[in-house]
């Protein structure tokens, strides 16, 4: 075997190993609240704001609220960090984080707002 083939095989092996380990390390499954309660790793949950009884402290950058999934299950979420600007208008919230001690601690929040733009486009797609 010559040098370039050895190098090529080495590169491919490194890429494969790093690819598989990085994939497993960074993949965050979208799971139900029940599954989130059972899991220990970084996961993604989504739902709608269950009620308006949330606590928002801008200065401490603290947010605590409850989200509800489509089965009606409710999950308390706590978040430290910059609060998304249009949080209270969110139609759906994606929280990435971990579950422990009876609540979900989010590291990242993705807030989706009512986008008339998207709704209109979907309507347009169907009606034609």
């Amino acid at each position, binding site marked *: 075997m010559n040098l370039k083939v050895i190098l090529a095989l080495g590169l491919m092996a490194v890429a494969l190993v790093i690819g598989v380990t990085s*994939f497993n*390390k960074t993949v965050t499954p979208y799971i139900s609240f029940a599954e989130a309660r059972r899991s220990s790793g970084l996961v993604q949950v989504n739902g709608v704001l269950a009620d308006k009884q949330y606590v928002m402290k801008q200065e401490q950058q603290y947010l605590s609220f409850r989200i509800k999934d489509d089965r009606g299950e409710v999950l308390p979420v706590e978040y430290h960090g910059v609060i998304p600007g249009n949080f209270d208008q969110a139609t759906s919230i994606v929280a990435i984080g971990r579950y422990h001690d009876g609540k979900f601690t989010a590291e990242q929040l993705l807030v989706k707002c009512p986008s008339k733009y998207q709704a209109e486009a979907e309507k347009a797609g169907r009606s034609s």
Partner: protein
Amino acid sequence: MSLGQVFCWIAFFAALAAGLSFMAAAGGREGAWRPARIAYRVQWVALLGATAFLWYILFTHQFQYQYVASYSSRAMPSRYVYAAFWGGQEGTFVLWALITCSLGLVLMRLKHALTAPAMFFLNLPLVMLSLVTVMRGPFLLFPGGRIPLDGQGLNPLLQDPWMTIHPPVLFTGFSSLVAPFAIAMAALVKRDYDGWVKVVLPWSVFSLGILATGFIMGGVWAYKVLGWGGYWGWDPVENGSFIPWLSNIALVHGLLVQRVTGSLRRTNFFLAITSYVLVLYASFLTRSGVLADFSVHSFVNLGLNGFLLSFLFLVMTVGYGGLLIRLRDIPGPAQPLGNFSRESMMWLGQLVFMLMCALVAVGMSAPLITRLFGPPSNVQTSYYNLVNAPLAIAMGLLLGIAPLMRWRKQEAKAFLMAALPAVVAALVLALAAAALGVRDPIPMAVLFGAAFALAANTIVTVRGFRAGWKHGIAYLGHLGAATLLIGIIASSNYGRSVQVQLPEGQERAALGYRLRFEGMRQDREGKDHAMIAVNAPERRFEALPYMFWSEFNQGYMKKPHIERFVTHDIYISPLDMAGADPSARGVWFEKGETKQIGQAKYTFVDFDRQMGSELVRVAARMRVEIGGRTVPVRPVLEMNMKSGIPNSIPDYLPGGGSVQIASVDPNTGRVALEVPGMPRAQSGSILAVEVSTKPLINLVWLGAIVMLASAFMSVLRRVLDLKRTAPAQA
């Protein structure tokens, strides 16, 4: 049927006619050439007509068209109206078809045996694209003759000069990969396994340069407008144009090897086909709505999934099928790839590009892959950095090694002698980096590789340019790439960043800078920006990041302030603003009073009160005139008498905006409301900002510009080569 729709139909039938005639011409019928050209030109004129018509209805605000109503509005500055053309998916299909067709016009001018079959294959996607514009084009009217009074407008994020030219540039690059695909297919049909290399090289290098231009424009926009501090976010849309680019850059290097040594014939066919397959795969992923839950982009499913998939499978079947049929007919390498030679290093370089391509493709397909085993999941963006960093080390080293080597055979000793100065220079740079605080092994290794590439390519570039610009130009591109790599490592790994709250009028420290928030000011376009006096050791300056209310997004739009220095940028990005006193936030209304705020007219009718033992509820009955109709709105304020905590329950406007009670004055019967588009609180606010430094960010831009200059001069070189070998042609 509208005129635009007529143009689309004409384009569709002309594409069919052109396709059949090109097939006949490719089969040897000389007589078919003329009708083929005519049909193809008719198609181009029809697409041009559709384009002109779309602009016409956009500029004349013909809101009976769904597309016009969805992506433009009367209030939009006219310099952005033209960009609404590609504001939505339907318009981008027209753009895609027009660009593909225009590139075909250029290819058609070439007098070469491969031209007719290549035109047939280039026309294939055009048939599919014009079919889309007919089915889901931008010329559909609202059903029942409904005409909205005004449109929705274009997302203000996209209302930026960089953003208005970025999509067409990226689309040109994206579409242009059809040319290498078509020429490769023509070569397979005609069994011209070497002659296509010269024909395809200018196209392939052109795609490389124009796609890179698109990336850089997108990067500048992200950095200057989006405010998260980076220029590349590994978003599905970015990845979608990055993977065909990687495959295409592998193709360019393979073509150069084939031209000199006659090897890699099969590999090059595979890469040319794969580049276009990846274009279509990425279009499918980003347009089908498959990723809708995984991206902040709005990916609307237009119901074209089946169609996009069949488009993809058609090209895959034709491409890979054609290659399989000819696989045994393609002769092996004229001379075997050397073991230790420039071409073997370039072959390794191709492998690195394709591994990057595969790993990025796996990452962006994560929701599809994981769906096979369980709930669909996505990878975090850190995945892309983790997998690409080790490959970037290999890339830097190969980038330095290959140009120092000779074609075919290299003596190890002579190579070591040639590489010595570059190794020494790289060691010096690496030591300097270590002295500046670079400690982690992986960034250090990437830096070393890039510094080695930088030094080696400086040597060969100077040597090349002495022999004539044609010999130095490619190395200059490598020089740019190495510079870019150093800039990326420095700016993304070694910047400092901190979030800080700035109460108005008070000084706060962050990263050794002293910042004082001095309030909000409106610019001439009516957009609010914050004024922050910054006292930095380098200089004093006033930072003016934008923070304005957007009707479109029903949220605050933010734009960072970037203070530029030679060695670094100070990047101040507004995050959020909160009024310290809620009553200062709202707009006060007397009973029966009407006020115009933003795009709506609000009238406060009366209060409804509900007294409980624990809870007091006050609802404000409002009438709101918005978009030509009047709606009742009833926001509520609840006060828990025990805890004294108020809870404000907003009510929603038809467009999605919310109306909320900020405060109630029981003595005068007035109410303060928070409504969309109201002026910002002028005092007593707290502004949250992120302050960060971006070391050596200028190397990113410098490297990118050098790379682009090299790419476009290389296109010129390859065109000149093609003309020289065929002086009587074209």
